[in-house]
């Protein structure tokens, strides 16, 4: 696995984790009467809200990286080849 592939895979997995956490904590805020007992009281409404808010920016950053990383790398690579 090349470094580029490793980075891409890492971003994908981190983004997957962030999406799952974002969805679960979102439900934890609005549907706390269901989520709190389902998580044995671990994910309370306030905790869900704190996590949800704190991962907003990382989520956006990783989403942008996920969408733009490959095209950007291709762009820079083609530029490099042209210059050579």
């Amino acid at each position: 696995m090349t470094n580029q592939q490793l980075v891409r895979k890492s971003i994908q997995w981190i983004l997957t984790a962030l999406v799952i956490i974002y969805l679960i904590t979102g439900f934890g805020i609005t549907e706390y009467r269901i989520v709190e007992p389902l998580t044995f009281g671990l994910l309370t409404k306030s905790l869900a809200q704190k996590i949800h808010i704190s991962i907003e920016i990382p989520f956006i950053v990783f989403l942008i990286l996920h969408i733009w990383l490959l095209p950007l790398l291709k762009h820079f690579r083609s530029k490099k080849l042209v210059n050579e």
Partner: protein
Amino acid sequence: MKKVITGRSILFVVLSVMLVAIIALGGNIGCSQTEVLAPNEIREYEGADLSSINDFRENSIKGPQEINVDSYMLRITGLVMNSTNYTYDEVLNMYQRYKKVVTLDCVEGWSVTILWEGLLISDLLAEAGPLENAEVVIFHAYDGYTTSLPIDYIIDNDILIAYKMNDVVLPPERGFPFQLVAESKWGYKWIKWITEIELSDDVDYRGYWESRGYSNSADLDDSYFGD
């Protein structure tokens, strides 16, 4: 052939499960039940656009409460000279009524602007006679929910307990018979189904959400987390 489980396939499965859950739950929990809009609900008052009664999200701790008005009593207790019990009609008929357009902002991110009609809590308290050491007003609801506010805030800001919204008597899901109009405070201070108003000297008292990580002051200008 070896199957590779990728992040994308996991995400697809998770999103599919979430979608099914949303559809399954949406009818009963995520969305409020289909309600008949009261025919006389007003949507504009003195040039201000009002939200609808149906714009609220149902997020109470035990769901909507049905209170029998015939057996209902509003109790004023704690550090008062005269602990008193009022019937619903007594509360409505004994005191001056007021109207006010106030916006409720929920920590979940939604807000509603409503014309509230009710009476001043300070009038109720004056009748009961607060003792000198009373510093906090603790509100108790029919479903066990509680919250508290400083007595000075209640008096200085002409805080109402409402029995009408948009010219319609509060429906059960909106807090009948009385909801607190905690102006400039986050939504969790707007207690519904009020059954008891208790005066206390316990400035550290924390209500239902306040004891679960939300701010006790609940000022709209500040974060809803903390103190």
